[in-house]
C-alpha cells in the first residue's frame, strides 16, 4: 500500500498523506514511508519547498488507534515507543529541513495530525477545516511537538484551553488567533498552497533555510546569543550565490534568478 504519495514538480515536492478511508491516520508503515520520502527531500537540492496535504476529506486524524492494538484488559502499552521512533524524528526533521515546509490543511486535523500541521513553517487551511487537540480526551498528552508549538503559536492561556479541553478549533478561529498563516475557501486551497510553494521554489532557498533556522533558534536563545547567531548566518548568507544575484539584479533593475545556493 502507498500511504504517502509524493510528486516533484517545479522544485516543489507535494507530499500527500494517503489513507483517506482512515482519515489519513498514521500507522507504523505510513510512518516508515513518510520517513523515506523525507530522506529524498533532505538529499535533493532541486526540491526547494515541501508541501504537505491530505487525500480525501481529512488532513490527518493523528495516530490510528486500531494500530496500537489497545487491549483494555491487557498490559499497559508503550506509547513512548512510537513517539520516540516515529513522531519525534518526524518533527525534528521538518524543523531542521533547510527549506520552507507548507501545510495545506484540507480538512480535519486531529491529534498528532493537528500538531503536525501546526509544526509546519506556513499553514494554510481550508475554511471548513478544523484542528482538534484530541489527546486529553483519551488521557494523553499532545505529542508530535504539540506542547512546544501550541503555547508559542497561541499563547499560554489559549494553549492550555485547547490542550486541556480537546475541543474543536475552527480554521477561522485559528487564523484569528494568529496560529496559522491563512484561511481560504475550500475550493481555493489547492491553488493558493501550490502558488505559495512554487513561489518559494524560485526564492533564495539557502537564505530562507537560514531564516528558518534562526527563528527556530530564537525560541531558546538569549538576545545576546541570537545576535551572535544573526551575525554568523548573515556572514554565511552574504557568501551565497543568490545574494550576489539578488544585488546585481537590483542594481540592473531586472528580476533575479535564484538558484537556491
Amino acid at each position: 500500500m502507498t500511504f504517502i504519495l509524493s510528486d516533484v514538480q517545479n522544485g516543489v515536492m507535494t507530499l500527500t498523506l494517503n489513507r483517506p478511508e482512515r482519515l489519513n491516520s498514521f500507522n507504523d508503515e505510513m510512518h516508515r514511508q513518510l520517513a523515506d520520502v523525507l530522506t529524498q527531500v533532505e538529499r535533493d537540492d532541486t526540491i526547494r519547498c515541501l508541501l504537505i496535504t491530505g487525500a480525501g476529506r481529512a488532513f490527518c486524524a493523528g495516530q490510528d488507534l486500531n494500530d496500537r492494538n489497545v487491549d483494555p484488559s491487557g498490559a499497559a502499552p508503550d506509547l513512548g515507543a512510537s513517539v520516540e521512533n516515529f513522531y519525534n524524528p518526524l518533527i525534528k526533521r521538518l524543523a531542521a529541513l533547510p527549506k520552507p515546509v507548507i501545510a495545506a490543511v484540507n480538512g480535519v486535523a486531529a491529534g498528532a495530525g493537528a500538531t503536525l500541521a501546526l509544526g509546519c513553517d506556513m499553514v494554510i487551511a481550508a475554511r471548513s477545516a478544523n484542528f482538534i487537540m484530541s489527546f486529553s480526551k483519551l488521557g494523553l498528552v499532545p505529542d508530535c511537538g504539540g506542547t512546544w508549538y501550541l503555547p508559542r503559536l497561541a499563547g499560554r492561556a489559549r494553549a492550555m484551553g485547547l490542550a486541556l479541553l480537546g475541543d474543536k478549533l475552527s480554521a477561522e478561529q485559528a487564523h484569528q488567533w494568529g496560529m496559522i498563516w491563512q484561511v481560504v475557501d475550500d475550493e481555493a486551497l489547492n491553488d493558493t498552497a501550490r502558488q505559495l510553494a512554487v513561489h518559494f521554489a524560485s526564492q533564495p532557498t539557502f537564505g530562507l533555510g537560514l531564516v528558518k533556522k534562526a527563528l527556530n533558534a530564537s525560541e531558546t536563545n538569549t538576545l545576546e546569543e541570537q545576535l551572535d547567531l544573526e551575525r554568523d548566518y548573515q556572514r554565511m548568507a552574504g557568501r551565497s550565490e543568490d545574494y550576489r544575484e539578488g544585488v546585481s539584479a537590483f542594481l540592473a533593475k531586472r528580476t533575479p534568478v535564484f538558484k537556491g545556493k
Partner: protein
Amino acid sequence: MSELLVSQNGRVLTLTLNRPEARNALNNALLDQIALALEAAQQNESTGAVVITGNDRFFAAGADLKEMASLDMPATLNDPRPQLWARIERFNKPLLAAVNGYALGAGCELAMLCDIVMAGDNARFGLPEITLGIMPGAGGTQRLIRSVGKAMAYKMVLTGKAITAQQAQQAGLVAEMCPAALTLEYSEKLAARIAQHAPLALQAAKTALRQAHELSLSQGLAHERQLFTLLAATEDRQEGIAAFLEKRPAAFKGR
C-alpha cells in the same frame, strides 16, 4: 595528495586531516605526521598557535581498526602508538581543534588533547570503543571525566553513545559552538588572536594550566608562582606592560 595538509597563515599553522576515504581515521602514519608537524611548529618562531581540523563531515572518526585488529596482546604491549600520542601532547604552544562532524574514538581523544575545542553545530563527540569490545586507549577515559564530570563521562564511555556539539559545550568539552560553515574560520581567528600574545607567556600559561590536572592545589599554586616569576625576567613582560600604559599595541619578541 598528502594525508595531512599543512598551511601557514600569519602566525597560525593549520593542520587538516585529509583521509576522507577512511573518514579521517587516525592510523599510526597520520599520528606520526601530526607529531612531526607539531615538532616543526615548536621550533618555528613564526608559528604562534596551531589549529587541527578535518572536513565538513568528519574531524576524525576513530583509530584505524584494521591496524588495531592485527595486534595481539604482546604486540599491543609494545605498540608505538602511546609514544606518538606523547609526542603530540608535548607540543608547548596553544593547540586548537576545529571540529565539524564526527569526532569519535581516537578523533575525540585528539580533540580533547587540544587546549581549546571549537565545534560546528553539526559536531558529534563520542567514545564508541566499548561497542567494539575494547575501551578508550589514548586518554579518553581520563581527559573526558576531567572536562565533563563523572555523570556524563561514565554514560558516554559505558554506552559508547555520542553527544551533540551543544551538549558538549554545556558539559565543558567545547569552548564555543558555531555554524559548521564558519568553524574553521572562527578557530583560525581565535588562534590568530592568541598568537599575538607573548610566546613565552603563552607557553608558561599553558604549562600552568596543564599542571592543574597533575598536581594538588597547593603544589599547583606554587608552580604557577614559579612560572609567573620566570616571566618577570622577560623583555616581553616589560613591553606588554609598557604598551598597555602607553596605550599602544605591544610588539613582542619572544624573549
